């Protein structure tokens, strides 16, 4: 394990949080949060309800602004950036409460996310690019209005990409179905497909297995690993299903009341006294027999 860790250290982190804190009124939802994700990582984030896990996602993806600390994506500081800009740098996510574009078809849900280019380079977010972006944008509108061959080719390309992602997620048969009519489990997978459409470097999954039965969860575990490898991602998973988390994550961070109370390999975390008290509960120990 430690050998793996050292080899990881040599790669630069794609996503890095340094001492991130956020407060809502008097409530400290997240305190001094640190995290680094590199390509190929599969990390877990667990903790009791209300510990601040989703909040951490929101801070990382720019939905909330941290009150303190720094978030870097691909080495670029992104504090104050809008979520879409952060997404362009290669950070994609799913939501705890599914947020699909409900009236759009499965295919269109993914196509919204698909963009012609992959993730930007960090310098492409710098000053001076605003004007260029605006120009590109209006040029793209004109292309769409005039149906230029370039535009048509691009549309076809997007469709191909989206279809491919649907296939990867096992949703090809739902291609033209409106998202709201999909069963819950498929909606979850569609969310992942959509997130992949943005060609991310890092994928954040917020309770991807919620609402799935044991069998579907088992399938999901395989899928997450496969995605990491095939798309060369760093993945961070929030999940309450210990079987899933312990089963696939190489490293797990445990939050409680916004503070990081433990971090380490699954076996290590599982037997951490503080984690057991705050989160897992004694009965978990009993049923899994792994006393410290």
């Amino acid at each position, binding site marked *: 394990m430690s050998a793996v860790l050292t080899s990881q250290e040599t790669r630069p982190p794609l996503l890095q949080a340094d001492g991130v804190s956020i407060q809502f009124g008097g409530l400290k939802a997240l305190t001094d949060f640190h995290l680094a994700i590199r390509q190929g990582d599969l990390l877990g984030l667990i903790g009791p309800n209300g510990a601040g896990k989703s909040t951490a996602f929101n801070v990382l993806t720019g939905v909330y602004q941290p009150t303190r600390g720094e978030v870097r994506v691909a080495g670029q500081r992104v504090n104050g950036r809008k979520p879409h800009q952060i997404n362009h740098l290669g950070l994609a996510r799913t939501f705890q409460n599914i947020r699909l574009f409900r009236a759009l078809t499965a295919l269109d849900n993914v196509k919204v996310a698909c963009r012609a280019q992959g993730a930007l380079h960090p310098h492409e977010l710098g000053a001076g690019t605003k004007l260029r972006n605006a120009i590109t944008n209006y040029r793209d509108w004109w292309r769409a209005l005039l149906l230029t061959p370039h535009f048509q080719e691009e549309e076809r390309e997007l469709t191909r990409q989206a279809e491919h992602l649907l296939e990867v997620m096992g949703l090809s048969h739902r291609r033209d179905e409106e998202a709201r009519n*999909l069963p819950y489990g498929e909606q979850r997978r569609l969310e992942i497909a959509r997130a992949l459409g943005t060609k991310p470097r890092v994928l954040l999954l917020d309770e991807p297995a919620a609402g799935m039965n*044991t069998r579907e969860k088992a399938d999901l575990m395989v899928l997450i690993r496969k995605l990491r490898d095939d798309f060369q991602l760093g993945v961070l998973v929030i999940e309450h299903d210990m079987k899933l988390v312990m089963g696939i994550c190489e490293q797990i961070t445990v939050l409680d009341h916004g503070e990081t109370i433990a971090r380490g390999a699954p076996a290590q975390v599982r037997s951490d006294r503080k984690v057991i008290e705050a989160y897992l509960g004694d009965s*978990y120990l009993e049923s899994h027999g792994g006393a410290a």
Partner: protein
Amino acid sequence: MSEAQVKTLGERRAFPPLLSVDGIKVHYGAIQALKGVSLTVGKGEVVALIGANGAGKTSTLRAVSGMLKPSAGRITLDGKDTTSLKAHQLVPRGMAHAPEGRGVFPNLTVLENLELGAYLRKDADGIQQDLEKGFTLFPVLKERRKQLAGTLSGGEQQMLAIARALLSRPQLLLLDEPSLGLAPQVTETIFRTLREVNATGVSVLLVEQNAHLALNSAHYGYVLETGEVVMAGPGKALLDSPEVRRAYLGE
């Protein structure tokens, strides 16, 4: 219609009848979600309803609690036909439903949410007692009583929804995936609470993805597949059945 195809395992423990659902059908526009579901819940019984995504579990609960009007079939509660009653008319008859997606009122405080659970009750003292009981069950809620429910974490909202349902002192409690998104510990708490509540005589109709947990705590269970009941039997019996193990426990 599909009565004959239900595979029944083992003997059902006898409870006095409370809820009986008889061949209900539910449509959402062109989609038929339920194709004639029949099931019963006895007084003091815990009944689990399991099934894959989209099988129609939620729709069944909705029909029972009056949120949806079934297009065919009959529902009786305590011997009275309630098929055409609206949701708010069923509450005084002892129905409480913690819906899918929790359904807390985000624009109200935690305390106000709880008080709404006791909307039809007039006994201020009793309400106060039950509130305290709820708070001991879920201490977080006490901490957050003045916070707007919308800002609670997912798990906290789930606790709130259950506590709120209990505050109406129901005779029959409908729970739709109560463990969804809950920390293992809280899931424990909730199922313990469920057993406690049941011990006081409250019947429970439980929908769960976690078939293991659900069937373990249920007297009786039904397996739903694409809008139809395909299997029924005592919880333990279902747990042991190879079909269930394969389809829902991934073994």
